[in-house]
């Protein structure tokens, strides 16, 4: 039965990928995400570990032995098994405002991580690729302008379509050290790389239908890199109220990052003597993008190996965000606070052989004040999450499936309210070949 479930799961993942790829080829909407990702450097992406994603949290305060973690560098000190993980997900947005509604979907591969023990259970390292922010949107801006006067008076209508893609990514390497059974610390350094493209396509037409206006087609490329650092502390207190319980506290700090960035414009136009498209590139700005300080802290209490409850908070000081490359478009960046709680239930830990006891279950909810204030309104997000973990019958590897459903934004002040639902599938490989311990 387990094999059957795994087969169904693999089929589902394949179908998900196929759906997304097909959508990407035939429908440009498939690559779009939240309309709010058009501001700044995009929407922040929170990812700590695939098991915590089922609760909507990062999981900075708990460790799952067979699932790699990026939530807290201190976790790497507890590494016993060689592990790797990666994921793919699709998020759908149903947006509405006072004027209409729209639907978007976005497929993404959000992270890849390898976590290895250097000294089992004492010292471990991690190398990973994770998104820091993500930009995926389409905006359409229309307007008109009256030119000339008298007989030459004319009204020009224009329509500017902007497709944003990319984001800021983090290529990170770090080390974690478990000092003793209670405390572990960790540090990670990263190359923070920005690559955000806004493809702008403008068409102009006039009411006199002269139609000798050429479309303006160009891509604004924002790119750059900086040095990022994270540090974390993880505290674990076993047998606090009884023999099997455990209290763990974790916190990690993401230090501000200064990205030396440049903004270039790549222009696309028809060649003078043929129908072929030509391109040229021109740097139009250079400057610094400063990403804010972030603090993630949480507490997890496990009454036994089967249960766990986590409370977590994330603070990001987006009021300190600055971007010398582009204006803020009348939008304020405000400090972001995300709080959440979740529970997990691991019935397999009891050794039960019942079918439903062979999975990992998790559920949670978060509230995010957001980092944007648009038209005087905070763009906050309420999200509910649920997770299901499938364990490999022959190893400690697993697959985590998480579902999320929530709301972002508001209809007031003519803003956009988004209903969001998403599916994410993570593959967690444990006991990587030569790192498999001889004794368990």
């Amino acid at each position: 039965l387990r094999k059957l479930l795994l087969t169904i799961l693999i089929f589902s993942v394949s179908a998900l990928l196929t759906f997304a790829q097909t959508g990407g080829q035939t429908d440009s909407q498939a690559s779009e995400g939240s309309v709010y990702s058009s501001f700044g450097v995009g929407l922040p992406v929170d990812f700590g570990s695939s098991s915590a994603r089922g609760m909507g949290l990062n999981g900075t305060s708990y460790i799952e032995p067979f699932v790699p973690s990026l939530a807290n560098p201190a976790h790497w000190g507890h590494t016993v098994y060689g592990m790797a993980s990666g994921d793919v997900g699709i998020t759908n947005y149903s947006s509405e405002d006072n004027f209409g509604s729209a639907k978007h979907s976005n497929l993404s591969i959000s992270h890849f991580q390898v976590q290895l023990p250097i000294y089992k259970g004492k010292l471990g390292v991690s190398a990973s690729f994770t998104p820091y922010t993500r930009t995926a949107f389409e905006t359409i801006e229309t307007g008109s302008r009256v030119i000339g006067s008298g007989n030459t008076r004319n009204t020009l209508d224009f329509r500017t379509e902007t497709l944003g893609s990319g984001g800021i990514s983090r290529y990170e390497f770090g080390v974690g050290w478990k000092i003793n059974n209670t405390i572990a610390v960790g540090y990670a350094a990263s190359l923070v790389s920005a690559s955000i493209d806004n493809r702008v396509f403008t068409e102009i037409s006039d009411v006199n239908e002269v139609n000798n206006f050429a479309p303006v087609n160009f891509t604004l490329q924002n790119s750059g890199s900086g040095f990022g650092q994270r540090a974390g502390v993880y505290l674990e207190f076993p047998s606090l109220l009884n023999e099997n319980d455990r209290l763990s506290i974790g916190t990690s700090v993401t230090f501000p990052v200064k990205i030396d960035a440049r903004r270039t414009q790549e222009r696309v136009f028809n060649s003078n003597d043929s129908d072929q498209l030509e391109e040229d590139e021109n740097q139009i700005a250079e400057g610094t993008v400063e990403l804010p300080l972030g603090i993630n802290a949480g507490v997890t209490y496990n009454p036994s190996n089967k249960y766990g409850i986590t409370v977590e908070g994330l603070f990001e000081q987006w009021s300190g965000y600055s971007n010398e490359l582009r204006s803020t478009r009348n939008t304020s960046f405000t400090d972001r606070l995300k709080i959440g709680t979740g529970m997990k239930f691991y019935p397999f830990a009891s050794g039960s052989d019942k079918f439903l006891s062979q999975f990992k279950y998790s559920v949670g909810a978060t509230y995010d004040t957001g980092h944007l204030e648009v038209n005087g309104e905070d763009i906050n997000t309420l999200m509910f999450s649920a997770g299901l973990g499938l364990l490999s019958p022959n190893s400690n590897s697993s697959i985590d499936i998480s579902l999320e459903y929530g709301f972002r934004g508001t209809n007031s002040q003519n803003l956009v309210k988004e209903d969001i639902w998403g599916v994410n599938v993570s593959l967690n490989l444990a006991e990587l070949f030569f790192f498999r311990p001889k004794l368990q």
Partner: protein
Amino acid sequence: MLQVAGCSDSGSVGGGLPGTGSQIVVDSIDISGTQVQPLPAFSGNLQFLSTGSLQDPLFGNLTATGLVKPTLPPLVEEFNFGTDMTLRLVFNTDVPYGDTLATQRYNIVELNEVFRGNAVRLNDKIEKSTGPVVGSFTVQNQDSVDIELSEDWVCSYRDFYIATGEDRQMMYSRNFFGLAVVPQNQAQVISINERASRFIVPEEILEDSEESERDTLNIGIFESAYTLDRSNTQPVDEGTSLLYSTFEQMLEFDFDFSLENLGTQNISRAELVIFRDNLALNQSLTQLGESAVRPPGGNLQLFLLDENELVASIGPNTLVATGIYEPEDEAYHFNLTDAVRTRFFSNIEPDQSFYIAFGQVNGTIRSTALFNSQAAPENRPKVIITSVNTENN
């Protein structure tokens, strides 16, 4: 109104979100330093040749003399070439120039020197015979005329026709000079369709011939040209320049079309606009006479030329754009969008300049008056750039 939307099959949202500030920007940049550039243009072997004379209060006293030389067809021994020969001139009625109710008189006289159509320039002086006229005719609102040519001239042509030596063609080219169509009064300038016009020779019927039908020999035009004497041009306002389809005068200017100078890369349309001085045109036409007209229409042409090779290089290969007259703003508009967007003007040599010419050199005489860079600011030639400002994207 600005609207921002995230869009999909089912609609769009986001009308209340702050936009990227996209807007259309229209910049107008005056062209400075325009100069009138004379050009000794070629005027032979064109589609038309002009002839006639008139006094144009704006464009001066014009006297155009047409030059034609018949071809020398192969000898047909059975054809009896007599002393009768007619010149049929077919006119281009699309370009009347002058008093349409007046009669223009012409004499056809023999030339005293050889002319080569491809080498004749407008201001060349081709010597004419002072001997008796070869023919005469008048023109008033007609599309063609047949002119009986003098017996002496026909006989001199016949001598070359009936010659049989191997140097027959060479001797004809060197020693037979052709005819000039010389205006005798000042009323109109007409243009003759060179390809439709021809010499017609009816076969002479000998008294002892048994044939009753006369054959006809149609002889085309071997060389054609016209010369133009323009004098007494009245001074015009310093803000107005006169241009002719003969390229006697062109408008020269320099302009930096680089995207850096234009201040934007997001160009949707780049236009060169040159305004026509319709007041000068209309007032002078009234003075020319109530029934007077000038050839209608005519576009402007923009060339990019090396000033040291103007005559040799001007032509279709160096044509950059054509300016079309739009009555709404009384201006010629050149669409330079593609040229600017593709940086076509990025490698201009120091000796190269832009030249505006009027019409086409096809043998007709058209004229126009343009406002130049010394005109009132609103009338100066200008480059108008329509671009999209999306700086907040």
